[in-house]
């Protein structure tokens, strides 16, 4: 194994789950997410020489995001029907004694996932980066290629949209 590959695997592969999670939430499709992650990791590997002392994770996330955009905007892309909180996705529910609580938990999970999946992409992107990947505003700005002020306003908008949807569903007695 070459040193380049060795170093890349040691520094970038630990972030594979984060890369997949972002691709999965952006594309809302497991098959797209797989292809996007593979494209992104290859692109990252080829560009690895250009990475200086920077943090690997935001750099990698930016590549994932750009790979997804390229794929999304490809003219003859076959559109998968998104599965907002559908069958796919590792639902890590342990076999426990309280089956009813577990079922409720699973259905609550589907509901939350569907709500996030329904957010417009620009808002979904900043929300996932902030709340799931724990990136700072500066890092999100880097990943998304937008000013920090825009990160802040998109985040606020994402939160407001989620809250409105929450309220609307409650009023329809879905809770």
């Amino acid at each position: 194994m070459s040193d380049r590959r060795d170093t890349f695997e040691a520094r970038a592969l630990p972030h594979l789950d984060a890369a997949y999670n972002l691709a999965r939430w952006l594309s809302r499709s497991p098959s797209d997410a797989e292809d996007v992650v593979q494209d992104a990791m290859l692109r990252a590997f080829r560009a690895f020489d250009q990475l200086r002392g920077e943090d690997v994770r935001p750099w990698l996330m930016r590549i994932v995001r750009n790979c997804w955009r390229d794929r999304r905007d490809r003219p003859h892309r076959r559109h998968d029907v998104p599965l907002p909180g559908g069958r796919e996705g590792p639902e890590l529910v342990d076999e426990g004694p309280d089956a009813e609580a577990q079922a409720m938990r699973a259905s609550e999970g589907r509901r939350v996932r569907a709500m996030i999946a329904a957010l417009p992409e620009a808002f979904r992107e900043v929300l996932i980066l902030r709340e799931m990947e724990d990136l700072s505003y500066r890092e999100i700005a880097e990943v998304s290629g937008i000013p920090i002020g825009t990160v802040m306003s998109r985040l606020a908008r994402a939160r407001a949209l989620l809250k409105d949807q929450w309220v609307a569903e409650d009023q329809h007695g879905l809770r």
Partner: protein
Amino acid sequence: MDCVELLTTQAFLDGELANGEAKAAELHIAGCAECQAFCEDAVSIRSDLRSYAQRYAAPDRVKLRVREAIAAADVDLAAKDAPAPAPRRGRLGTFFGGFLGGVGVSGLAAALWLLALAPPTPATMADRIVRAHTQALISGNMIQVASGDHHTVKPWFAGKIDLSPPVHDFAAEGFKLTGGRIDRIAGRPAAVVVYQHGFHWIDLFVWADRGEPMPAAGARRGYNELFWKQGDLDFAAVSDMQADELANFVDLVRTTGE
């Protein structure tokens, strides 16, 4: 409808504000019903997201596919990097090329020599050590002697540098001795003992003390650094792992000594 301080309140919630700003934001929130409601909603969204909408982990077949793709790309890149056949030059070209090349090299050498003369400030020292560490990672020249055995690594330094760094394997404590190399910091040779902690690399730089002040511990470009003197040697430990883990490592090195 929206409070003008809403984005500041949000920044406070996201841990983006420094001490003074955070205090001011707290004061504002205490007196603003709208910002209070925003905080409540944002916190409940956060907890829902974290407890119900878990992160998707990459399936094993993705991990496999990625590794295979990288291995294939690695072979391609290696083929591209192979030295190209030297371009043929005419006799005159060789003469001038040699002449100009000579000037270039000696000019560069002079510039490096001047740089080496000026003693580095603690801050540039700290910066150079991070740079040496990341350059070693990027160039793949991290390890010149690969071994987890201190009986192999320690003697390797003899005859290559005029000091003998302490070398111990701390695998039992989670810091695995991986090897060593000779590096240069500010024009001076340094012995580097290389350790691994999980996926993190740790470089332990050791050089002869010249009575210069040591840089303060800190984080630079995502890397943590710690410095200390012990006897007539200067030490720097640098890694991308957490500062407290690095401190544990340094504690081991310092207490174990020679």
